[in-house]
């Protein structure tokens, strides 16, 4: 291959790489959830944990769970895209299993502590879950923002 041809091929390859970067940035901008989305997920998660800790009937928990589910489905459909989570799917499954296996005994513990400490115990656990969910959302959002090198997308 002559030098000119090599340079030409390289320029075309660079154009293709640039167009890939443009497309990835464009679609990631669409995938970034607004700040209210984080609250809409974290708040019901905290409320659900509090309700479970308070041993309130599942009948009252169902609407909160449904609200969370509807928010996710509605937003994903509206955005038209669903971003890949930053950690791999395998890591995410491991984290979820670990969280559930920690959360279930904690809820049972809180149900026992409720007799002594009253509502403070389930409320504290609910608040902790809310904060953890919100922090996870913020980290995920920042990871997406750093991928497209912009801080101005709300």
């Amino acid at each position, binding site marked *: 291959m002559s*030098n000119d041809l*090599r*340079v030409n*091929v*390289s*320029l075309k*390859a*660079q154009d*293709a*790489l640039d*167009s*890939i*970067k443009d*497309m*990835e940035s*464009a*679609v*990631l901008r*669409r*995938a970034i959830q607004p700040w209210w989305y984080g609250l809409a997920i974290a708040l019901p998660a905290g409320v659900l944990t509090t309700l479970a800790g308070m041993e309130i009937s599942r009948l009252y928990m169902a609407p909160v769970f449904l609200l969370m589910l509807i928010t996710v489905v509605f937003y994903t*459909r509206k955005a*038209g*895209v*669903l*971003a*890949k989570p930053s950690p791999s799917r395998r890591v995410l499954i491991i984290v979820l299993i670990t969280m559930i296996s920690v959360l279930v005994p904690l809820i049972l513990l809180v149900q026992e502590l409720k007799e002594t400490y009253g509502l403070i115990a389930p409320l504290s656990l609910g608040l902790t879950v809310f904060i953890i969910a919100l922090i996870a959302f913020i980290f995920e959002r920042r990871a997406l923002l750093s*991928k497209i090198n912009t801080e101005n997308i709300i």
Partner: protein
Amino acid sequence: MSHFHFDTVIHAPNRLQICALLAPLETAEFQVLRDELRVSDSVLSKHIKQLEEAGYLKLRKYKANGRQRTWAYLTSKGRKAFEAHVEELRRLVSIADGMQNNSSIRKQSTI
């Protein structure tokens, strides 16, 4: 197995852009792809069909509010092929960069 592979199915500009759009995503709606690529439904369908035939892309269709909605996603084979293609493009660029550096060093040494 080599990590570099120039894929002729992927390299066509529109198909390359479809793969680039889907690579950072789990899934995307047909309309989003069409809007980002600024092509007609038929053009997008044609390219999607070619990627589907290569086993790089799959479609999921369902009805919502009486409307058919189509979502596309890259298969693991598609993701691997796209990554290998991008690596090949990077390799081609780096070869030319290396050549330019060598020629500038040669020029400097002759001066």
